[in-house]
C-alpha cells in the first residue's frame, strides 16, 4: 500500500488517571523529535480518575494544528467508551485495541489490530500493569508508523526526567509492543511518519507555562490566585520557576505568592499591590472573572494598574470546565457595572503568551488600569511549538509615577486625576512617598481625588477615562495580517483560532477557489489597522469560538456605520478545539446568504 506520509490523525481513547497522558506525550514528543510537524490535543474530563479522556495527535506536513476532521487511527483502551469509539470510526480506520478489555470490535470495514496489552504489562510489572499497558500502544504505533527508536528513547527520557527505573520499564514495554506488532500484525497500514529537518531551536510548551515565564520576565511582584481549571497551571508554573529565576541576592523572594481564599480576594490583592506601586497579577477563568467584576470596576475608576489572565473555558456557569471556548471576550472588555472599558491582550501563540506575559505589566502601569491577558484552554493547556522565547525589547515601563519632590514640583497644579499631558493619563504618587497623599476611592471624585457628586466633574471624569483607554488602541499589539491582492473576502479572528486558520484558508481555496485575507486581532480596544482591513475588503467574516459572535458585537458597536453591512459573524463552539472543515463550511454558507443553522 502506498503510504500517506505525515498527514494523519490518531485518536487515543483512555480513562483519566491511568497514566495515559505520559504515553500520549511520549508519542507526541517522539514525532516532534523526528521533525514531524505535529500537534496534540488533550480532551480531558473534569475528574481525577476514571472518566473518559481522548488525546488527538495530528501529523501534518502542511503544519495544520487543528484536531483534524477525520480520525485515521483509533486506539481504544477505555471500556466505558469502547463501543461508541469503535462505532464512530469511519470505514477504513485502523483500530488498535487492548485485547484484555473483553469487549468486541466488530468492524469488518476497518483494519482491526489487537494486542494483549494488560497481560504483557503484567508480565513485566504486575503492580504497575494498568499504567504500563499504555506504553504498548506507544510501541505499536511506533512500529506501524515508523517512529524511530532513538526518538522514542529521547521522548521517554524527557518524560521521566531522572527516574531511571521508570525510563527502563517504559522503554521495555514500548519495545515489547513494537515486537508484538511486528510479529503478529500486517504493519503496512498506509500511514507513516518521515523524518523532516527539525529546527534545533524548537520545542513544545504549554501556553500557560509560556505566559507564566513571561510574567516572571515582566517583573511580577505579587501573584494572588485561586485554583480553577484551566488557569491553575499558569499560577503553578510561576511558583515553580520563581526560585530559579527571581531570587534576590539575600536569598529572599522578589515576588510574593498568595493562594487566596477566593477570586474576590485574589483580585483585591492585585488592586492593593497596584495601588502600592507593585506589579500584581492573578489568573483565573470565566467564573473567576464573574466574581472579580466589582473590583475590576474599582480599578478602572480609581485607576489602579494590575494584570488578570483569563484562561477561557466553556461557559456559561460551571459549564464544561475542561473544554475550550472564546466566550469571555465581551465580559472582559466591559467587566463591572457602570460604563467601563478594559484593555485586553489576546495571544494566539505560545510566543505571544510569553510576550504578553511581560508586556501586560507595562501596559497596565502605562495606562493605570487593569489589563487582561486572554487565553483559552486549548492554547493554555496544550503543547505548541516555539523556536524559543525572545527577550523583552524594551525596559520596564513603570508609567507616570512621581517619585521625587522635584518631579512633583515640575507639574503645575498637580492633582491625582488631572490630565496634565492631554492623553487622559494622570500622574500618581505612591503610598510611603509622602508626596501628595490622597484617599483613593471608588466613589465619584474630582481631579484632586476629593469626593464629588458634581455632575460636571463626574461627566468629565468618565469622558477622560474613555479618552485614556481609546488612546491605547494603537499602542497595543497591532493585528497580524495576511492580505490578498484581490480584497474580496477578509477573515478577522483572534487567539487560538490561529491554530486552525491556515487549514480553513486552504480548504476555502481548494474547494471554491476563494482567496481570503486574514487579520488576527491581538488586543482590545482594537487597533486602527483592523478598521482599515475592514474598510478595504468587500466582505469581512468575524470568526470565533463562541455562540454569539462576541468580537463581531464589539466591532458592530464601535465601527463607523458604513462598514456594518459588510460584516458577517461566523461563531460556533461545542467545546472541542475548532475543526477547520466545520468553520470553512460555515463561512461558505454565511457568505452565500444561507442562513440555516449549521450543525457540526
Amino acid at each position: 500500500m502506498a503510504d500517506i506520509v505525515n498527514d494523519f490523525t490518531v485518536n487515543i481513547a483512555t480513562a483519566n488517571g491511568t497514566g495515559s497522558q505520559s504515553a500520549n506525550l511520549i508519542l507526541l514528543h517522539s514525532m516532534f523529535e523526528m521533525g514531524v510537524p505535529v500537534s496534540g490535543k488533550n480532551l480531558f474530563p473534569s475528574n481525577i480518575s476514571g472518566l473518559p479522556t481522548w488525546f488527538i495527535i495530528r501529523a501534518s506536513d502542511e503544519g495544520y494544528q487543528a484536531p483534524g476532521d477525520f480520525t485515521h487511527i483509533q486506539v481504544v483502551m477505555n471500556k466505558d467508551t469502547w463501543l461508541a469509539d469503535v462505532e464512530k470510526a469511519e470505514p477504513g480506520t485502523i483500530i488498535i485495541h487492548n485485547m484484555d478489555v473483553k469487549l468486541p470490535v466488530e468492524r469488518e470495514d476497518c483494519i482491526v489490530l489487537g494486542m494483549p496489552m494488560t497481560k504483557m504489562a503484567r508480565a513485566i510489572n504486575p503492580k504497575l500493569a494498568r499504567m504500563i499497558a499504555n506504553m504498548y500502544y506507544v510501541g505499536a504505533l511506533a512500529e506501524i508508523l515508523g517512529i524511530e527508536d532513538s526518538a522514542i528513547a529521547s521522548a521517554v527520557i524527557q518524560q521521566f526526567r531522572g527516574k531511571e527505573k521508570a525510563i527502563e520499564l517504559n522503554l521495555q514495554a514500548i519495545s515489547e509492543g513494537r515486537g508484538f506488532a511486528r510479529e503478529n500484525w500486517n504493519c503496512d497500514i498506509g500511514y507513516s511518519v518521515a523524518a523532516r529537518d527539525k529546527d534545533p531551536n524548537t520545542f513544545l510548551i504549554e501556553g500557560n507555562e509560556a505566559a507564566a515565564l513571561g510574567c516572571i520576565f515582566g517583573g511580577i511582584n505579587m501573584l494572588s490566585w485561586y485554583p480553577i481549571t484551566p488557569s491553575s497551571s499558569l499560577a503553578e508554573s510561576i511558583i515553580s520557576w520563581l526560585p530559579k529565576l527571581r531570587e534576590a541576592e539575600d536569598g529572599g523572594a522578589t515576588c510574593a505568592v498568595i493562594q487566596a481564599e477566593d477570586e474576590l480576594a485574589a483580585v483585591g490583592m492585585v488592586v492593593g499591590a497596584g495601588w502600592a506601586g507593585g506589579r500584581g497579577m492573578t489568573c483565573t477563568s470565566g467564573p473567576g472573572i464573574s466574581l472579580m467584576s466589582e473590583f475590576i470596576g474599582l480599578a478602572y475608576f480609581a485607576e489602579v494598574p494590575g494584570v488578570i489572565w483569563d484562561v477561557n473555558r466553556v461557559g456559561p456557569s460551571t459549564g464544561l470546565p475542561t473544554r475550550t471556548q472564546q466566550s469571555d471576550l465581551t465580559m472582559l472588555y466591559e467587566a463591572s457595572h457602570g460604563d467601563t472599558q478594559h484593555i485586553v491582550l489576546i495571544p494566539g501563540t505560545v510566543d505571544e503568551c510569553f510576550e504578553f506575559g511581560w508586556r501586560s505589566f507595562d501596559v497596565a502601569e502605562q495606562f493605570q488600569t487593569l489589563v487582561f491577558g486572554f487565553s483559552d484552554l486549548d492554547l493554555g493547556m496544550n503543547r505548541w511549538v516555539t523556536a524559543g522565547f525572545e527577550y523583552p525589547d524594551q525596559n520596564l515601563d513603570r508609567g507616570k509615577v512621581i517619585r521625587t519632590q522635584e518631579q512633583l514640583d515640575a507639574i503645575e497644579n498637580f492633582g491625582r486625576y488631572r490630565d496634565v499631558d492631554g492623553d487622559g493619563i494622570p500622574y500618581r504618587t505612591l503610598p510611603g512617598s509622602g508626596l501628595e497623599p490622597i484617599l483613593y476611592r471608588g466613589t465619584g471624585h474630582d481631579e484632586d481625588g476629593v469626593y464629588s457628586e458634581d455632575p460636571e466633574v463626574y461627566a468629565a471624569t468618565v469622558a477622560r477615562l474613555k479618552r485614556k483607554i481609546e488612546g491605547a488602541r494603537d499602542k497595543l499589539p497591532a493585528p497580524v495580517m495576511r492580505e490578498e491582492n484581490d480584497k474580496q473576502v477578509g477573515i478577522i479572528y483572534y487567539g487560538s483560532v490561529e491554530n486552525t486558520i491556515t487549514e480553513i484558508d486552504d480548504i476555502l481555496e481548494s474547494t471554491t477557489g476563494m482567496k481570503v485575507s486574514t487579520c488576527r486581532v491581538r488586543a482590545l480596544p482594537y487597533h486602527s489597522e483592523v478598521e482599515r482591513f475592514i474598510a478595504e475588503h468587500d466582505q469581512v467574516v468575524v470568526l470565533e469560538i463562541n455562540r454569539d459572535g462576541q468580537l463581531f458585537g464589539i466591532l458592530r458597536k464601535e465601527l463607523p456605520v458604513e462598514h456594518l453591512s459588510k460584516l458577517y459573524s461566523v461563531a460556533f463552539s461545542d467545546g472541542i478545539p475548532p475543526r477547520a472543515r466545520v468553520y470553512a463550511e460555515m463561512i461558505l454558507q454565511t457568505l452565500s446568504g444561507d442562513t440555516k443553522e449549521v450543525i457540526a
Partner: protein
Amino acid sequence: MSMRAIKLNVIDLPKADYTGGPSSLCPGCGHDQISNVIIQAAWENGISPERIAKMSGIGCSSKTPAYFLGKSHGFNTVHGRMPSVTTGANMVNKDLAFLGVSGDGDTASIGIGQFIHAIRRNLNMVYIIENNGVYGLTKGQYSATVEKGSKKKKGATNENPPIDLCKMAINLGCGFVARSFSGSKKQLTALLRAALSHKGMAIIDVISPCVTFANNDESYRSYNYVKGNEEELHTVDYIPHFTPIEEVEVPEGQFEDISLFDGSTLRLETLGDDHDPGNPVAALAAIHEAEENDKHVTGLLYYDSEMKTADEALGLTDTPLVDLSEDELRPSKAALKELNQSFRA
C-alpha cells in the same frame, strides 16, 4: 508679639499633621470619637504620617479615613474587601504601617471571609471595627453583630444571636485582640497605641453607638447602655519605648506589663479578677460570661507576640518589593537563553 507653644511629638510634628478633613457623619457619631483617637494615638506614637496606609471598605466607618491622617495615602475600597487590598499592598510594601478601619456590616457580613483569612495569614496590620450593630448608610438595618434582645430605634427586636468578632479572632489565633468603647477615650487610645506597636494582626473591636438609628435605651449599643454595662478587664496604660519608664505613674494595685514589638509597653492594671491575656480560653470565658449577662467586656482580651506575619512567612527579600530595581525584577538575557536551552534539551 506673643508666642504660642505648639506641642510636638517625638519626631517633631504637631498634632495638626495627623488630622484630616471635616467629618460628614451624624453629629455625635461614635466613629468620629474613634477618628480623634486615631489622630491622637498616631501622633503620640510619633509615626511618620507618610509611613501609614489608611485602608477601609464601605460604610459609615469606612468613610472615616477621609477625616484623619490627611498626610497618609489611603484606599476606600469595596464593601468587605479591605483585607485583601491591604494584603496586596502589604506584600509589595511591607514597611508601611497599615491601619484598617471597617464596620460591622463590612466585617461581620459581606467581608467575613476576608476578615477570617487576613487573621489566618497574620497580616501585619491594625484592624479597627467600628461596631454599632446597624447599617447606617442604608438607614438602620440590623447588622450581624447586634445582640439577641437588642432593639434599635425603629422596628422589631433582634432575635438572632450575634457574631462576636473578638471570639472569632481569638479562635482563629489572632495575636492581639481587644475590645473597647468609643466613649472610653483613655482606654481606646492606650489599646490603639499598643496595637500600632504590635507586629502582626491587631484587632480592636470598638463599640461605637449609632446616634441616629440605635441610640435608644433598648439598644445594647447605645451610649447609655454601654456606659452602664461595660466591664473593664483592667485599666490600660501605654508606655512608649521613647519615654523613660520612671516618668510613668506606678499604680497602687497589681499590674502586668506586656512588652510590644517596638519596645513599648502596655501596662495592665488589675481591677477585679485577674485576667491573663495570654490565655485564649480565659479570654473566651470572659466574653461568654459578659454575653450571658448582657454586658460588654472591654480591654486587651488576648495577646500572643510569637507569630510570623504574612510577609515574614513568605520569605520576602529585605527591600520592599516596590523598591526593587529593574535588574532585580527582570531576569537577564543570559537567564532566558539558558531557559530556552533547557527546554530544547
